[in-house]
């Protein structure tokens, strides 16, 4: 049986942040993820906002980790080569909304966040397309946008580069106390860990239950989103929120870190067994359109290229970030909903400190850096020429909409945490994320995966098991021409 100092359960943005922070220590660490890739749950399908920190109630864990996490983003994303832009955010209010804006302002000040109340003229300067009846806004210049799945993947890659292990498609089916630690049983193997971190997101309740730990009641809310073509970028410059209500921060309009526009989310409460289904609803999309119309009516819905849904899981009003009282060296990260993405890097550091103190781990002298990915659209002509001269596959465009080369796809397939599905490739290099949504490049990405993984095309999957894309061979001898 393999033995680890720490096992982290769950490969979302929080689990991988914990793993990366643990990789800074001299320790044997493993992350177990039931899906075919990291960032397949809430970390894939969320708004991708780095919240400034005025929203969470002062004194809460949410406020603490939000503010601490947000401050880490500029250097962290530079170090991990993750798309991030500090675009600022606005909470926009109509006539009569000033008291609510003032309340947010005060909370922001109390939380130590840079905030400002601005009026029509300044709002228009920031957002020329803002709805005509918006009079006041809370402006937080340090809010930003980030690619949430690229951050998760980069944290995972960086952890792996520094000796951490990640095992995908291994579902934890049992945890029990054993020999001063835990026996962690998966559907593939058994492990011993001195310390276990439950970062399983919506599935954290099941993980707790395996051990006999109780979980406060979880509430799952599904949100629908639209993504617009990069051609629509420019319709909005900052993250524009309505005034928050009891359901949350409301339906926003924002640029994405990758140059698209995002609209959403709604908030539809679903039972626990539907928490990971993520189905878009027509009603939800209608609500998004309605909400967007109140903020930036100029948004052109004909430039929609994708709709999706994501689920955020809450337990009460605050994050639960604590070691179990009942089980020593068992750490729980529960209800890490918004601002969970923003908080994740700070949570990772915090948990790693707790774990290292408990296990008396020594810090490594330095972490190995994560090498940058070559990106055709961001490279200079000289770099492109040199890259193609060295490896012609960097001159072969596979995804025409996003200008992704075969070389970039190969590097994703052979990255520290390898991409072995079409969606995993997509999240790393954007092949299939453009306006044709993989209409042309998906078969070619499948061909490359089939070749690199030495599997027949019929076994190439979109994502998890059972998602084979072209499972049958044609019978009549048509085929390669």
């Amino acid at each position, binding site marked *: 049986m393999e033995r680890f100092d720490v096992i982290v359960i769950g490969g979302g943005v929080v689990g991988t942040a914990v793993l990366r922070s643990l990789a800074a220590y001299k320790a044997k660490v493993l992350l177990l993820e039931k899906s075919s890739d990291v960032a397949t749950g809430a970390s894939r399908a969320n708004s991708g906002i780095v919240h400034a920190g005025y929203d969470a109630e002062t004194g809460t864990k949410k406020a603490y980790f939000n503010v601490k996490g947000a401050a880490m983003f500029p250097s962290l994303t530079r170090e991990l080569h993750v798309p991030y832009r500090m675009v600022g955010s606005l909470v926009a209010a109509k006539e009569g909304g000033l008291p609510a804006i003032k309340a947010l302002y005060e909370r922001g000040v109390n939380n130590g966040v840079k905030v400002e109340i601005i009026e029509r003229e300044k709002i228009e300067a920031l957002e020329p397309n803002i709805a005509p009846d918006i009079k006041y806004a809370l402006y937080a210049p340090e809010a930003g946008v980030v690619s949430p799945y690229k951050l998760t993947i980069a944290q995972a890659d960086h952890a792996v580069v520094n000796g951490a292990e990640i095992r995908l498609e291994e579902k934890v089916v049992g945890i029990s106390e054993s020999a001063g630690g835990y026996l962690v049983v998966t559907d593939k193997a058994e492990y011993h860990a001195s310390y276990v971190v439950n970062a399983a997101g919506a599935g954290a309740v099941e993980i707790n239950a395996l051990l006999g730990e109780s979980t406060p009641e979880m509430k799952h809310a599904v949100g629908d989103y639209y993504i617009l073509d990069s051609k629509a970028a420019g319709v909005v410059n900052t993250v524009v929120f309505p005034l928050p209500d009891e359901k949350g921060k409301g339906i926003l309009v924002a640029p994405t870190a990758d140059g698209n526009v995002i609209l959403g989310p709604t908030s539809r409460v679903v039972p626990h067994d539907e928490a990971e289904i993520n189905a878009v609803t*027509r009603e939800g999309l209608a609500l998004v359109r309605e909400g967007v119309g109140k903020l930036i009516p100029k948004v052109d819905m004909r430039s929609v290229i994708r709709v999706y849904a994501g689920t955020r899981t809450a337990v009460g009003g605050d994050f639960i970030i604590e070691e179990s009282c009942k089980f020593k060296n068992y750490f729980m990260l529960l209800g890490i909903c918004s601002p969970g993405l923003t908080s994740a890097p700070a949570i990772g550091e915090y948990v790693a400190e707790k774990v290292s103190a408990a296990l008396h781990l020594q810090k490594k002298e330095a972490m190995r850096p994560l090498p940058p990915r070559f990106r055709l659209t961001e490279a200079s002509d000289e770099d*492109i020429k040199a890259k193609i001269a060295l490896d012609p596959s960097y001159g072969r465009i596979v995804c025409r909409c996003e200008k992704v080369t075969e070389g970039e796809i190969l590097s994703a397939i052979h990255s520290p945490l390898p991409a072995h599905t079409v969606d995993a490739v997509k999240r790393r290099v954007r092949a299939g994320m453009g306006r044709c949504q993989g*209409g042309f490049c998906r078969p070619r990405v499948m*061909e490359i995966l089939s070749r690199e993984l030495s599997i027949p095309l019929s076994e190439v999957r979109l994502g998890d098991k059972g998602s084979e894309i072209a499972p049958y061979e044609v019978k009549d001898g048509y085929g*390669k021409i």
Partner: protein
Amino acid sequence: MERFDVVIIGGGPAGMAAALGARESGASVAILERDDRLGGILNQCIHNGFGLHYFGEELTGPEYAKRFRDQVTKDGGIKVFLEAMVLSLTEDRLVRAISPTAGLLEIEAGSVVLAMGCRERSAGAIALAGTRPAGIYTAGMAQRLSNIDGYLVGKEVVILGSGDIGLIMARRMTSEGAKVKLVAEIMPFSSGLKRNIVQCLNDYDIPLRYSTTVTRVAGEGRLVGVYVAPVDDKMVPDLSREEYIPCDTLLLSVGLIPENDLLNGSKVEMSRVTSGAVVDEYRQTSVPGVFSAGNVLHVHDLVDNVSEEAFVAGRSAAGFARGELSGGDTVNVLPSQGVRYALPQRIHKGEGKIKIYFRVDKVYQGRTVVVKCGEEVIRKKKTLVMAPGEMQNIEIDASLVTGDVSIYTEE
């Protein structure tokens, strides 16, 4: 830096015909093709029905492509760059491209023919509700997987949209043993060719339901079923009549979009109806020396028309490069009363015949097509049936054109 009289972007049917047109006029010609072979989408269209008009015989897509490819590559007079993707095109016709063999390419062009074809509207673009499992494809993607790669995407199929590729794939998947349970079309008529409805659906007893759409999809790893419902005349589904159809595959054939991304931010005037450039009868755009032909200009239903149109564009592009393309004033061709769009949108006054292509906005029986210049009727043509899925054309005498021309239908 290399220089060619005519640079053609795209080596599908339009690009190849344009190259031949330009070459015949004595121009030096280059084709930039992003795939590793010429032919474009024809290579995956293994069914027959191509070439009836152009060659007077029935060919498969690869056969039709081969006829052109053989001529294009016959004597080495046309330079073909394969796996060459154009990254940008400037107003003074500097073409920047990338390929694994040539690296970054910069080519100076006397004139440019845009022949990039079109793409299929995706599930995202129609905001398909439900989950995001495997099992949802554009019809063309499924066609490529079966006809180029040799793999079938599923066994129990629902098709949304009755575009031609969807109809062709209904028959193709049936011939592979799949069961096509339904073709749902949101409009009260098909955007596909009548002959495809007969030969691909009726002959195989595949049901086609008009004014019906897919309201949502279900399934996590793989699609397990879709919900369909009838729509009202505003295309709003009646969810009280939603019906569940178990299936592992949903093919989308819900429209084709000219792939003009290269023109984003350019000065080429675009049509909001066709999503292609606005052109004159030479297929020249509003930017002198930039021509457009084939599905990147407007979506065709017959490749034969693509070839014809692109040949003209190539010949004209060669004329432009030599400084011999006649200019002069243009007048507008204005569609109205039943005509959704007409192309070319601008024509020159002068000599000879000009063929105007147009599409109607719904199905018409026994209508007359009228072309009028001022108060004068310059051409009239009686028709039996006109459908939006079948492109029409009418020829007019350029010498009769004195001002803006309108084209419409009447009882």
